[in-house]
């Protein structure tokens, strides 16, 4: 199952590394990454494959959210389908 991870927050060193480590720890494979910094605001969007994920989707979501909260980042994971439904015919 493919999902989109979005990370939004104030830019600093090591955000990508930390998020990737967290995903790797759950056996979540990163398929694509795009990242920009706008007015010091860091925005990263990752397309990931959760097929081999060792946790349930909601556990993964909670884990990412908590990790984000402790670092002042907004991290969320949502199934790709919702974006496809809303933006593609």
């Amino acid at each position, binding site marked *: 199952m493919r999902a*989109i991870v*979005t990370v*939004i927050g104030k830019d600093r060193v090591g955000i990508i590394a930390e998020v990737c480590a967290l995903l790797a720890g759950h056996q979540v494979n990163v398929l*694509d990454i*795009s990242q*920009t910094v706008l007015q010091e605001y860091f*925005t990263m*969007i990752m*397309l990931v494959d959760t097929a081999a994920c060792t946790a349930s*989707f*909601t556990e993964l*979501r909670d884990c990412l959210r908590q990790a984000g909260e402790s670092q002042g980042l907004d991290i*969320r*994971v*949502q*199934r*790709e*389908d*919702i*974006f*496809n*439904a*809303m*933006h*593609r015919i």
Partner: protein
Amino acid sequence: MINSNEILDTIRMIDQQHLDVRTVTMGISLLDCCDADPQRACGKIYDKIVRSARDLVKTGEAIEGEFGIPIVNKRISVTPIALVAGASETEDYVPFAKALDAARAETGVNFIGGFSALVQKGMTPADERLIAAIPQALAETELVCASVNVGSTKAGINMDAVARMGRVIKDTAARTADRGGFGCAKLVVFCNAVEDNPFMAGAFHGVSEADRVINVGVSGPGVVHHALQAVKGAPFDVVAETVKKTAFRVTRMGQLVAQEASRRLGVPFGIVDLSLAPTPAVGDSVARILEEMGLETCGTHGTTAALALLNDAVKKGGVMASSSVGGLSGAFIPVSEDEGMIAAAKSGVLTLDKLEAMTCVCSVGLDMIAVPGDTSAETLSAIIADEAAIGMVNTKTTAVRLIPAPGMDVGDTVEFGGLLGSAPVMPVHRESCAEFIARGGRIPAPMHSLKN
């Protein structure tokens, strides 16, 4: 891969513009729960609802978690109880409402609807008993919703039922006076009620429906409002296009959730209801959309035209996004549940008469409006009759959900809390309509009902 802006757009809609799925409603037929013994009938009703909807809340929450889209309500609608209870040898239908409430509590859903009767042409003894039980049922249950259909384009308006509903509303308010007449917030009087409506308080599961069905109601006034802010001053063609595009996206999201819920629960997908359902939260208001089109305050001249455009564009945008559209599908204008409507009503610009005009061009009707506590039953009935006439002649659903707030008058505000919001008491005309209501009988169906 979908592009970054689209992803961030969706996240902004959810985070800042209150995009949500308003309700996933499971319709459950109770026709197989009829029993001559009322206790056994109630037992069967409880069992079937609990068995059918045991996983509804859990499934809704799982979908929320995976898609990251809030599903605000999980609800149940059932066969109009008058049709089920009619088989039981009892005069008292309150226990049926209590059985519904117990099943509601057990399944953990937010509301259960269907304590209903369809009496547009005439009343059976069961219909009469159900209507008589409504005030007590609404006072003694927590989250059971009742509705009565008093008219249709095909049948005309049953004025005996209209007269009775005025008294039922008064009685319901009196029995829940300690909560501002809260019981009335759970009671809808319809003309042309639909059988697949997922929204409360008027939801029931029609007899032509399958045994069980999943209906989804979307929302999104905040998203539409935000989209219109980007086209300030543009001609109405542009406004309509913008609303259509937004409604399309919102509905696609609702369709996805509906299909997913249907698949996981093993219950057929019914319809997506394309409604703009506001909440009392700032930024989630239908009134503010109308104001965004260039009106200083909702309720001023131009409001009806603005609402007509909005309602139509929402449907046109949504209809292609869903495989099956139904329910009420249109913009809702519940006064107490819409921050902008509340403000407009408090300022005196938005009046009951203007709201009535607005209901000609949108779904659904005079909704969640508090009127003075001393409003007579006849006046309430006459308001119902007016609204039903609009529905009957225009072949559309109209509804009345009025709260004659006990002990309150114009200038007061009734607080319901939560999604039901707060209702400023609005003035009604004081001139009597008692003789009009006392006539009874039936207002015949309009000429254009004879289509065959």
